[in-house]
């Protein structure tokens, strides 16, 4: 039953290739079907009598963890496809290509989340990335889009080469690429000279840290997020980041758990740098997409705070954070898509002046997304931050929890700056603001924003179902079969 998730996406790819109408609708239906498949698989793996299982010669693990990420990624695909629909028509790029690439890259993300073998992690990562390189450069005529594609490509393949080197070293040290076997090997043998293994850890962390945009591997993020077509940015910030974290959490928290004394300090430094750099650099930006890019870096820092705790609670907090974050970030970039106008021409802060008067509902939605990202109570963002920081305190990483709270305050300033621009800068008879063009809100994008908005608010009010979901979604290591 769990394999249904995988088969559904694979089938979607095959049938996605021939041209057909309503590509966006098709993509959304595919994503929803995959979501239903995951829900069925969820029933299967949480059933205590049967539990998680591995498939395809132990290469794939179907457990609560992979199903959770399956749902996060399919949600991201569905919402981003709804945003892309009108965007592509506006840019005169309508066609199946972007949707096929989006599904392909989503499949890569799912494979990464389900991987139980370093080979499969690498295959998933490359499927995800190669499709994304093309998506980033999808606006063939726009120079920024091409620039973001080449930057993403060069740095992306560079970092996956590091990841590969790390995998090779881990393989050399442990004699296997399978997670269960590696964990068994590490439990049975005390490595006298573990330099090879530790170097492998470091390189793996570089490769995966790049994918989730952790500082100091973040330099590509602002440029790529700014240059890529905005719906692609939304997908990149949600699905690709979630897949990267899926692999990172599974590799370090479950497979290399025994070596947590070795990797926790590194994770600590990464989390602090990511939080601080992300939130402080966001403050000095003038381009809204760039601001959101830096804020997404600081969000990655929060998830790393949960990972650093290296406990079940920290992991559940990180998972909850990723789910809540997916809705917030797709919503935010969705609004940026609509305000940006033809050719992604204007994402500067002044373009948002007086949005509350021109488009009150859109401004309200954006405000909710921004407040949720800032972590204001009654939104999902508050609870997400609360859980990861709570886990950090529980793991006695007090300094880290403190830094996380300070950087949350700093990044709140960024979000308030955008909100103030939307609500307060227009006086009566302000010609400059009145001259700004009317922002059209197409129904598909409105639906996408509406879903994200409802989720953000409802989870903020009634969090318990989602919290339980995240708590049950811990990765499982099933010992390798004969």
């Amino acid at each position, binding site marked *: 039953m769990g394999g249904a998730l995988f088969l559904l996406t694979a089938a979607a790819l095959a049938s996605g290739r021939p041209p057909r109408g309503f590509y966006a609708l098709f993509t959304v239906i595919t994503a929803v079907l995959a979501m239903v498949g995951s829900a069925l698989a969820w029933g299967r793996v949480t059933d205590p009598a049967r539990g998680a299982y591995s498939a395809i010669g132990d290469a794939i693990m179907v457990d609560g963890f992979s199903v959770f990420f399956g749902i996060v990624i399919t949600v991201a695909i569905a919402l981003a496809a709804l945003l892309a629909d009108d965007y592509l028509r506006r840019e005169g790029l309508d066609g199946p290509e972007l949707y096929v690439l989006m599904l392909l890259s989503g499949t890569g993300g799912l494979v990464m989340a389900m991987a139980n073998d370093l*080979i499969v992690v*690498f*295959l998933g990562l*490359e499927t995800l990335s*190669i499709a994304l*390189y*093309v998506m980033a*450069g999808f606006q*063939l*005529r726009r*120079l*920024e889009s*091409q*620039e*973001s*594609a*080449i*930057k993403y*490509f*060069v740095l992306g*393949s*560079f970092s996956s*080469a*590091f990841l*590969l*080197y790390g*995998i*090779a*070293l881990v*393989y*050399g040290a442990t*004699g*296997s*690429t*399978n997670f269960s076997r590696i964990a068994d090997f590490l439990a049975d043998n005390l490595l006298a000279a573990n330099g090879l293994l530790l170097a492998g850890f470091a390189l793996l962390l570089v490769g995966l840290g790049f994918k989730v945009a952790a500082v100091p591997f973040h330099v590509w993020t*602002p*440029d790529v997020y*700014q*240059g890529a077509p905005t719906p692609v940015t939304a997908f990149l910030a949600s699905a690709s980041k979630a897949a990267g974290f899926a692999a990172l959490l599974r590799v370090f928290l479950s497979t290399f758990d025994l070596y947590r004394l070795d990797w926790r300090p590194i994770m600590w430094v990464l989390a602090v740098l990511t939080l601080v750099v992300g939130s402080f650099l966001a403050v*000095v*930006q003038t*381009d809204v997409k*760039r601001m959101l890019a830096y804020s997404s870096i600081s969000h990655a820092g929060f998830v790393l705070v949960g990972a650093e705790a290296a406990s079940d609670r920290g992991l559940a907090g990180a998972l909850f954070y990723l789910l809540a974050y997916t809705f917030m970030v797709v919503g935010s970039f969705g609004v940026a898509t609509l305000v940006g106008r033809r050719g992604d021409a204007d994402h500067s802060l002044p373009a948002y002046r007086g949005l509350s008067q021109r488009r009150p509902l859109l401004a309200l939605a954006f405000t909710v997304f921004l407040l949720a990202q800032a972590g204001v109570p009654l939104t999902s963002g508050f609870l997400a931050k609360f859980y990861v920081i709570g886990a950090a305190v529980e793991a006695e990483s007090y300094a880290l929890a403190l830094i996380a709270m300070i950087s949350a305050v700093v990044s709140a300033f960024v979000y308030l700056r955008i909100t103030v621009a939307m609500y307060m800068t227009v006086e009566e008879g302000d010609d400059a603001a009145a001259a700004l063009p009317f922002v059209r809100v197409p129904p598909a994008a409105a639906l996408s924003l509406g879903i994200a908005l409802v989720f953000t608010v409802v989870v903020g009010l009634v969090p318990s179902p989602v919290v339980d979901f995240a708590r049950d979604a811990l990765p499982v290591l099933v010992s390798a079969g004969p």
Partner: protein
Amino acid sequence: MLVNQFLLLGAVLFCIGVYGVLARRNGVLVLMSIELILNAVNINLVALGSVQGPEAAVAGQVFALFVVTIAAAEVGVGLAIVLLIYRNRSTVDLDEVDLMKG
């Protein structure tokens, strides 16, 4: 087995590749440097596999094959992007691709 020599070769190739990516400005040469790193990984995988005993060695060799396949796909996409840049700007110098900063 002279595994150390192979590992050393892999490490040297890796370093040359990293140097190439960081120092070269020509887009095509950067791509070639990335290929060098991937090949260094392949040498490592097969060399490290050879000390593991026959069963575990298969994993490394199969992985090396996967890496070769993916490297081909990656270079295809990479060259296409470089070509796109060349058409629009008549240059493949990556240092000149700098519209966005900050």
